[in-house]
């Protein structure tokens, strides 16, 4: 065992922490961008205007069927040869955004389409406008439907940042390569780097699973909704108290995970 671990890891701790921070930064920025672009593409694909639908469909099909590595090379080397020089962080994020937005748009489109037409009608009948219906009724339900797929994409994106090693993006995998070059301890180094990825991804996926369960149970997550439910609970205290003991009784608190 001692012969396996011979790299002076304490010497590399600052560099590893810096690489870890970069990996998290690539993930956070790219995922935020991919969600926004994916949502926009999904809305275009659901548009009544056929050119908008066509553009969105072409985008989705192109980026779903080109390898991420090719997109990274195109962003960093390809654009540079065409006179558009992007720094490695921008090129890396751009690649991840356009690639994952294609997949997320499919998840979002399916989730939005899956919201029953009766929900829109109920919103209309209550006098909500198009924006109100989308924001208060369709989007929250669609997000609930899209959460499992979106969460899978987030973990996948985090792991895919390792491909940025090919453009020396100074993230975890790049740092691992540098340490390997300096120590010639490939097995040890990549075992440790893999363990760091696992230590990032596993808690993240478990947290996202917990989040999914909470959302499915209707647990209020936003501060304003928590405040509303708290006030409602206080106003309804007497009513809920009168039936305490009913065998069928369930409410938001009991359903919460």
């Amino acid at each position: 065992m001692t012969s396996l671990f011979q790299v002076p890891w304490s010497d590399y701790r600052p560099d590893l922490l810096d690489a870890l921070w970069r990996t998290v930064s690539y993930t956070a920025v790219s995922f935020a961008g991919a969600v926004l672009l994916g949502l926009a593409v999904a809305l275009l694909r659901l548009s009544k205007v056929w050119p908008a639908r066509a553009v969105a469909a072409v985008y989705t099909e192109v980026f779903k069927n080109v390898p991420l590595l090719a997109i990274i090379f195109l962003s960093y080397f390809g654009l540079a040869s065409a006179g558009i020089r992007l720094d490695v962080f921008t090129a890396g994020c751009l690649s991840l955004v356009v690639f994952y937005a294609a997949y997320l748009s499919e998840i979002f489109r399916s989730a939005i389409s899956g919201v029953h037409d009766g929900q829109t009608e109920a919103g209309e009948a209550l006098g909500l406008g198009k924006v109100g219906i989308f924001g208060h009724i369709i989007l929250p339900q669609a997000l609930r439907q899209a959460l499992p797929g979106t969460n899978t994409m987030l973990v996948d994106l985090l792991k895919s940042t390792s491909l940025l090693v090919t453009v020396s993006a100074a993230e975890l995998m790049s740092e691992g390569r540098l340490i390997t070059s300096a120590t010639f301890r490939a097995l040890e180094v990549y075992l440790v780097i893999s363990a760091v990825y696992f230590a990032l991804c596993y808690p993240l996926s478990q947290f996202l699973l917990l989040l999914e369960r909470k959302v499915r149970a209707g647990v209020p997550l936003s501060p304003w909704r928590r405040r509303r439910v708290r006030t409602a609970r206080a106003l309804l205290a007497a009513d809920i108290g009168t039936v305490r003991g009913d065998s069928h009784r369930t409410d938001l608190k009991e359903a919460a995970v």
Partner: protein
Amino acid sequence: MTEPLTTATTPQHTHQEAGSGTSSPAPPEPVVRIDGLSKSFDGRLVLDDVRLEVGRGRIVSVIGQSGGGKTTLMRCVNLLERPDEGTVEVAGQVVHSGGRLVCSDLPALRRTVGMVFQRFNLFPHLTAVENVVLAQRTAGVPESEALERAVTLLRRVKVAHRGLALPDQLSGGEQQRVAIARALALKPAVLLFDEPTSSLDPEATREVLSVMRELAADGMTMLLVTHELPFAREVSDHVVFVDGGRIVEEGRPQDVLDNPGQARTREFLASYGSAS
């Protein structure tokens, strides 16, 4: 009941209201007035020159076979369906005329017309109380006022003890009662009920009809599409029989349901085992 509660000029048969004459009090101001309304889907005429009025505080039940145009007629009131021809007037304001939307503020119109759907259509991501709050908030009602009103309405429909439950944790009857509370939240001038008990078991049906009975006693104006003929007989001021997109017969419930003047009405009632 001495005056016609609704008028219809196209039906083949309209019962004379008992006691109508010069001494009758003035008919109530109409909350809903439909005149010459026609509607087609893909070239198939589903409503043909329908005229109907619902006076303030009155309850009008629309009965008829499935596919006869009842639901479409109701959905034309809040313009969930746009008529091809005719005029729709709500609370004294013409909202649709000659196949064109006349109303400049459609959401405002819809806030004056509450609607209860056959399949409830509650928002599944929100608790019962939040379902009742949502439309109030988007209409600008302050949060505390909206919540207090929601709780009051949930108590009124006897489902306040389930106020923090999500729709999928509620029984069908509870869901429909929450839907009624939600429809009442914006203090509508008229409530539309589209077969509100069709998806419910007998016990849940009784619960919902009990709430509707109380609303009727409170003087709520209601337009009701229903297959619950005994209930229609009990609460309605006026019954309209629709068939093939036309009003075939209308009048007081005891006239239309117990002594129908039209063969088609008798046939329909016989098929429901309700012919007297």
